């Protein structure tokens, strides 16, 4: 078993696992593996960052009725559909979107679900502020919004006090794909970072920006590792 240092002077150690581009199913299986290890205390809090191939995922409250196109259309467009255990309705992931999956033991974070979700939203708001974009929460509407347009989605599942799923921020997404669903069961307009700022951020820059915003909110010092290093506890 591993011997992760629990904390240092400058915060609790958390690991960033950058996955680059990966299909939804592969990342989901990876999340479940790491969730089991986190429950056992074999790995520290870990944040996966990924860009997915196009996929619609339907949450526990979701329904295929909010999918507005036929399965044939989806096949033609190369878009997969998965039903997943997170809260919320249907959502889209695809190229040009940064997704973070923090696998966090909430017993080390006040066991507070609402605060956890708020901190995920605040991560996005703080990063966007650094990019010159004013974003906010809207009462009763989860996620992060710029005016009345949604820029980031949040959905979380907690088992044995350890989180799965997380947040998805639109950097430059295919709006035609988004138009195929009724996101979260509501007719809402989505927006990408590219629509709002002149500078073209790379997805790597966005991941780095989000992690910088996230670290102080969660009291983390974030270090980057591969899954092998993480699981073998080498670092």
């Amino acid at each position, binding site marked *: 078993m591993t011997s992760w240092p629990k904390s240092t002077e400058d915060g609790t150690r958390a690991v960033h696992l950058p996955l680059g581009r990966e299909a939804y199913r592969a990342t989901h299986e990876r999340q479940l593996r790491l969730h089991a290890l986190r429950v056992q205390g074999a790995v520290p809090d870990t944040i996966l960052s990924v860009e997915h191939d196009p996929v619609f995922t339907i949450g*526990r*409250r979701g329904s295929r009725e909010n999918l507005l196109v036929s399965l044939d259309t989806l096949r033609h467009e190369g878009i997969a559909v998965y039903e997943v255990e997170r809260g919320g309705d249907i959502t889209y992931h695809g190229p040009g979107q940064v997704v973070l999956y923090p696998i966090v033991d909430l017993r080390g974070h006040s066991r507070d679900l609402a605060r956890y979700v708020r901190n995920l939203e605040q991560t996005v708001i703080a990063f966007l502020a650094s990019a010159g974009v004013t974003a906010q929460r809207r009462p009763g509407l989860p996620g992060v919004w710029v005016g009345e347009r949604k820029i980031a989605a949040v959905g979380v599942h907690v*088992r044995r006090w350890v989180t799965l799923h997380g947040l998805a921020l639109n950097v430059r997404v295919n709006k035609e794909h988004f138009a195929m669903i009724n996101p979260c069961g509501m007719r809402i307009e989505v927006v990408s970072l590219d629509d709002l700022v002149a500078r073209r951020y790379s997805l790597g820059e966005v991941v780095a920006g989000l992690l910088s915003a996230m670290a102080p909110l969660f009291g983390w010092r974030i270090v980057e590792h591969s899954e092998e290093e993480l699981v073998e506890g080498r670092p």
Partner: protein
Amino acid sequence: MAEVRLPDLGETGEVTIVEWFKREGDAVRVGEELLEVETEKTTFVIEAPQAGCLTRILKPQGERARFDDVLAQVD
């Protein structure tokens, strides 16, 4: 006998019972997943506090619950 109560989830207010994985009369092991509740955008799984028989479900699927509400009884 043990009561299955909604744990303190922090500032989270009311939750909705999404699904029971077990039915009344089912045998359960300690730590086995009993039910899932949902708050805004978050789902949370509650486990059996002890081994025994799930004798009574007091908050069926679709009902709302708050911190410390008794959800079920395991005898």
